[in-house]
């Protein structure tokens, strides 16, 4: 059991589009993943709150509204107090956050450096820029921050916040006096800008830079939460990164989206050997149990109705009667590019929409399953209206079903024999058109 599970995990890893993030971790095909530890999350929210507080109070200190300027009121004093208090909190928690980068997991370290020496990093940044500019269809998958986010966090937080702390405490020391610890620690700032007004200006400029950072940060978090189908916002509360399925938007999710396999039978059961595909998939359903990732579908002669099923699949197995000029009943396995696809423009009617056109339509729409397998059987008689499968073709159902099982296992899908027979409501074809009753002609 262990081995099977492991092998499956490996296969899933191999098949999902995965990027290595800066911490060197691959996004595993499974989610959720625990990313943000408790201290990281506490620091994040305390810092966020402090920064908002500081920006508002700082803005008012720099540009006092006229109503608070009247003497005899202490409003301005309260605002200044709030600013200083929040500043001390931010300073402490910033320090705590940087210290945690030493003790915490690898994701906690992401914001304190940029792996500028790695070529791949810059390539990935370029990809991210394109992704954010809506020029890429699919995001790369990262567990922690993507390279662009990492760069933004590094400059907008890890560099900018100390700058604000240093200039802020230096300005505070002007009031606290030259014997204060603030002056002792940060007085050197005035060696850079002897004019204290310059320090004020830089500090205020820093506030605007932080404002921009906050806006971008929130936009990116919300956007990625939606676009990359991963939990971005909630993971800063739960600590867990979760991948969602592709409900809602039409964007193709890639973040460890569960792989979808479609097992499809096509054909017309009313025209003898034409029914091979449908009967094969019906038999498979009776014989085997497959996990939820596999959809078993009787496609009939549905043509374009099947496009969305194909679009939703990464792996596709089709049972069908095919004419390769072989001996009747001979099975033929065709893979990927060899599966015929074309659109017959000169067809007389939509009823000539063959399966090759369904594939062609998926191609046109840019969402064809990556892995295609056609299990075909050479028919003997397609002209016997209402007739049964010919023995040559009927005898190939079992081998075709086993072939499909073999391919599913090769793809890492767990296929187990069905022990309890299906109830009629679970049959793929019911109401008298199941294989046995259909061929048991009531009046002969």
């Amino acid at each position, binding site marked *: 059991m262990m081995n099977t599970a492991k092998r499956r995990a490996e296969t899933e890893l191999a098949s999902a589009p995965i990027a290595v993030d800066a911490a060197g971790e691959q996004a595993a095909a499974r989610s959720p993943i625990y990313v943000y530890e408790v201290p990281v999350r506490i620091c994040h929210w305390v810092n966020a709150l402090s920064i908002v507080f500081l920006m508002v109070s700082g803005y008012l200190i720099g540009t006092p509204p006229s109503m608070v300027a009247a003497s005899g009121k202490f409003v301005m004093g309260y605002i200044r107090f709030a600013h200083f208090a929040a500043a001390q909190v931010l300073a402490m928690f910033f320090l705590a956050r940087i210290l945690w980068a030493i003790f915490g997991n690898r994701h906690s370290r992401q914001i304190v450096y940029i792996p500028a020496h790695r070529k791949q990093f810059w390539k990935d940044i370029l990809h991210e820029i394109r992704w954010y500019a809506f020029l890429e269809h699919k995001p790369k998958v990262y567990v922690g921050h993507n390279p662009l986010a990492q760069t933004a966090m590094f400059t907008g937080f890890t560099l900018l916040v100390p700058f604000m702390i240093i200039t802020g405490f230096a300005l505070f020391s002007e009031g606290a006096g030259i014997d204060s610890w603030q002056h002792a620690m940060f007085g050197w700032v005035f060696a850079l800008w002897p004019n204290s007004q310059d320090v004020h200006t830089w500090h205020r400029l820093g506030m605007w830079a932080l404002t921009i950072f906050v806006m971008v940060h929130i936009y990116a978090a919300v956007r990625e939460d939606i676009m990359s189908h991963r939990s971005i916002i909630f993971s800063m509360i739960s600590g867990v990164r979760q991948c969602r399925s592709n409900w809602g938007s039409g964007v193709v999710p890639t973040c460890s989206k569960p792989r979808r396999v479609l097992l499809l039978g096509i*054909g*017309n059961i*009313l*025209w003898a050997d*034409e029914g091979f595909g449908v009967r094969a998939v019906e038999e498979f359903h009776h014989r085997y149990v497959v996990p939820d990732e596999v959809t078993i*579908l*009787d*496609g*009939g*002669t*549905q*043509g*374009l*109705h*099947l*496009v*969305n*099923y194909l679009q939703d699949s990464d792996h596709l197995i089709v049972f*069908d*009667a*095919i*004419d*390769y000029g072989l001996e009747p009943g001979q099975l033929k396995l065709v893979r990927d590019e060899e599966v*015929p*696809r*074309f*659109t*017959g*423009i*000169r*067809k*007389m*009617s*939509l*009823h*000539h*929409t*063959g*399966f*090759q*056109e369904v594939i*062609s*339509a998926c*191609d*046109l*729409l840019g969402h064809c399953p990556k892995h295609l397998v*056609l299990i*075909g059987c050479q*028919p003997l008689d*397609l*002209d016997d*209206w*209402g007739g049964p499968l010919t023995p040559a073709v009927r005898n190939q159902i079992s081998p075709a079903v086993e072939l499909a099982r073999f391919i599913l296992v090769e793809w890492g899908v767990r296929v187990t024999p069905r022990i309890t027979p299906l109830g009629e409501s679970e049959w793929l*074809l019911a*109401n*008298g*058109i199941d294989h046995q009753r259909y061929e048991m*002609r*009531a*009046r002969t």
Partner: protein
Amino acid sequence: MDLHTPDGFKPGKRIVVDPVTRIEGHMRIEANIDSDNVIRNAVSSGTMWRGIEIILNGRDPRDAWAFTERICGVCTGTHALTSVRAVENALGITIPENANSIRNIMQLCLQVHDHLVHFYHLHALDWVDVMSALKADPKATSVLAQSISSWPLSSPGYFKDLQIRLTKFVESGQLGPFKYGYWGHAAYKLPPEANLMAVAHYLEALDFQKDVVKIHAIYGGKNPHPNWLVGGVACAINVDGTGAVGAINMERLNLVSSVIDRCIEFTEKVYLPDIVAISSFYKDWLYGGGLSGRSVMAYGDIPENANDYSANNLKLPRGVIINGNLNEVLPLDHADPEQIQEFVSHSWYKYDDDSKGRHPWDGITEPNYVLGPNAKGTKTDIKELDEGGKYSWIKAPRWRGNAVEVGPLARFILGCAQNKPEFKEPTEKLLKTLGLPDKALFSTLGRTAARALECQWAANQMRYFQDKLVGRIKAGDSSTANIDKWEPESWPKEARGYGFTEAPRGALAHWIKIKETKIDNYQCVVPTTWNGSPRDPKGNIGAFEAALIETPMAAPEQPLEILRTIHSFDPCLACSTHVMSPDGQEMAAVIVR
């Protein structure tokens, strides 16, 4: 125009258009052209199934829908609906109002889906030259698109991008999806920009149609073969969301509602403007009217209230017009043995007396595959049919001996003749926009336009019935099925009935006879049996044949005009042709002799 067997015709060149399929004569058109390349005689031959009674006799009537649903992959739902109606009619079973609304929504959804897909995926390419789109200027295309519609996908960048994608597909050679078109044919009239716009909408429609069928998945419980039920519909309503898996809850009702809104928007902002834009370049190509100006028929469908199938209660028109008398819409009765009859004098079947017709309740399907004396070739390899003898697997149904056309155009002509504003106003508006006279409606283009107008009508009717359904559910009515007469013990010893619908491509009816709880006879007369029928003993020709006569051809070896007119009927043939072969063969062989 003479709508009888063209006589006195001196055979010129004979064109044979035959799709390459495993079944001989699947859908075959032969036409004689004169020295000016004008069609003077047309012969339509098709393979229909060989009588569903062969399969159904002796089976449980409650299962009949599941079999008839398999006749065809495009019309599934509509056959199933017709079948349950026939059984209900025979056994006197009534259905709840909710079931009526849901059935109507499913049927209308099929109309919308089929019309959209038929036009964009098949028929548009008879008017639109894909290869010419490669030469279009994306900027000018954008200007054109924005001038006809407020549809947002119309920027120069969008069309440029599309053109690049298209070029890639065309250059991919063997995989090029458009490789078998008659590109560059003289009968294509659109400028490159209109072609590019239409190709963009081709892809958008292909993408959008996936959402349309979600309605079927929800109300049918299962897709792509929805479940149907004698006595109602197979889906339960449970708005609390606590019911069985698959029950209709608020979330699903809302999903249906949003899809309906998008259907209305797509039809009004893309499909109809495209029809206007394309038609404006083909105003002088008004061939293909055939029977439409003379004899049309519709059974009517979409009952406002449940269980009442009389003309007044049906939202789609019901009745017959013959001999071009638009002032008189004749009533029709499916049970009257004198009205609807099928003839086989030119079909590969035999009756006791081939000169007489049979009402479907007494219908028989006994093959008699013999070629006429003047046919060329052999039974397994027909070179040329003899329309003087038997020449088609399709029977020839007639209404009181008249050949009639069925389909969206027939419905709109009947709606206009009955002065129904919901049909008359949009038709008049469209004709006025194009600056065409009323009689322009009787053409291939008119058939195509009527389909688009009907798509719009159907999308809006879906909204109506969805609101009606939600209203009733809110009022506490969650009943979807009546099982009072489910058990065969409650049935009479013998019963017979009929059910009808308006399928996307025309009037469809099933006739059933039940004896001792089993099916005793079952006959389907489908729209393409009416339109694609061969001649009858009196020499009346069917709608396909009539529509082809007098059409001039630009290049007979590339019979684009024939395909264009035949496609405009949205013909339905037995679906059995998807068998794959390795080399992406051509779908139709054309021989000119």
